[in-house]
């Protein structure tokens, strides 16, 4: 339960970090380490080099830029969880953060790290997908923006190239009268969920749902948008009726603990609960 040998570097500029990453095929980028270091301890990952971003300046900021909230790569989960700007502009991120691991994990874990790690049972990737956010990545060729819908390719796999580093995530700022919730069903609180849902709801002046965004956690090999639920709500369906469509088009993970039929059932339950909570918080 000790990691295999590796080299460690804590560069003081992003360019230096990118050069180190380009020069080593097995290098891994280290932010908070709350997913990566367990993998090293279990020897499920044996990189030759860890590139720690902790001394790279400018990555530790939360800022409103135009119509987006931008969260830098080394912003800790606890820092974002307690940030009033995040609560106002991206209440779904705040709601999702409360379910990430435990407080002792969130003090070290980063928002960007969880999004780049791409665990299908993690909360923040689902929130990114539900919000139609984008990932800002820097590589040798410069900076590019990757829409959330194109970012997740499968289990622990993203559209980031081997020589690219996630530098920030950008999320569209929530309109007024918006509420959000993250609901999970797990064997123990803080465990990865058998299935979960994130939902963000915006109400119109009459108090009816003007827009709903929903994504599922842990249903498939990547976070998945519950498009059929959103369409049903847009067509005037009740939350209870719309939530029945949570599993539409989803090819669920099947394992002995949570068979696929049960997982689809859970998807409907957590979707309904998340939408109801989000709506009540939007008022």
């Amino acid at each position, binding site marked *: *339960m*000790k*990691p*295999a*040998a*590796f*080299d*460690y*570097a*804590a560069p003081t500029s992003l360019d230096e970090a990118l050069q180190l990453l380009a020069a080593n095929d097995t290098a891994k980028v*280290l932010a908070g*380490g*709350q997913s990566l*270091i*367990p993998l*090293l*301890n*279990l020897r499920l990952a044996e990189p030759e080099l*860890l590139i*720690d971003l*902790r001394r790279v300046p400018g990555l530790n900021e939360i800022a409103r830029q135009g119509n987006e909230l931008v969260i830098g790569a080394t912003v800790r989960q*606890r820092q974002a969880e307690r940030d009033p700007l995040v609560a106002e502009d991206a209440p779904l991120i705040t709601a999702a953060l409360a379910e990430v*691991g*435990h*407080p*002792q*994990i969130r*003090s*070290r874990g980063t928002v960007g790290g969880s999004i780049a790690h791409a665990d299908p049972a993690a909360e923040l990737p689902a929130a990114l997908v539900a919000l139609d956010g984008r990932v800002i990545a820097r590589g040798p060729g410069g900076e590019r923006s990757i829409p959330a819908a194109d970012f997740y390719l499968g289990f622990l796999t993203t559209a980031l190239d081997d020589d690219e580093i996630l530098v920030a995530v950008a999320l569209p700022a929530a309109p007024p009268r918006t509420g959000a919730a993250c609901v999970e069903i797990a064997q123990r*609180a*803080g465990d990865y969920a058998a299935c979960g849902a994130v939902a963000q709801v915006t109400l119109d002046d009459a108090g009816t749902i003007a827009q709903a965004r929903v994504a599922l956690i842990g249903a498939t090999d990547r976070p998945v948008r519950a498009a059929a639920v959103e369409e049903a709500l847009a067509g005037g369906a009740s939350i209870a009726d719309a939530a029945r469509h949570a599993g539409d088009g989803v090819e669920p993970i099947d394992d002995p603990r949570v068979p696929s039929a049960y997982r689809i059932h859970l998807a409907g339950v957590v979707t309904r609960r998340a939408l109801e909570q989000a709506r009540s918080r939007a008022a």
Partner: protein
Amino acid sequence: MSTHTIRVTVNGTEHEAEVPARLTLADFLRERLDLTATHLGCEHGVCGACTILLDGETARSCIMLAAQADGSEITTLEGVVAEDEDLHPVQQAFWDRHGLQCGFCTPGIIMSTLELLREHPEPTREQIDDALGGHLCRCTGYVKIVEAVEQAAGELRRSRA
């Protein structure tokens, strides 16, 4: 494997050390500084026995590298007791309420309790559950732990009043 010079302050004492890249902070504390109150259970961030205060916030020392801790201020269980007292009020409450049996998980739970009571001097049951949910205890069934935290909260409020 690379080695790194780190400077950390542990329980008020400054240390400078040369560490290999793969040395975890928990092993640094236990094997280099002989601070063995920080326990190692699962070694992958699940059980909470290795919890310490890093710059005042609880963190898992088993899933952090010593090299990452360079420049940090660390408090372990050894650092929570004032020189003129045998037990910290939180430790005393765990003793009084039987909040431990074998005691393996206790050091981590004490560190999380200290953070909880600093942020919420009068914690609700829900806040206690949230703060301690990341700690596994195979002996007590947790009920006595929660009672100990509530007693400690009362003691600390009285001592501040």
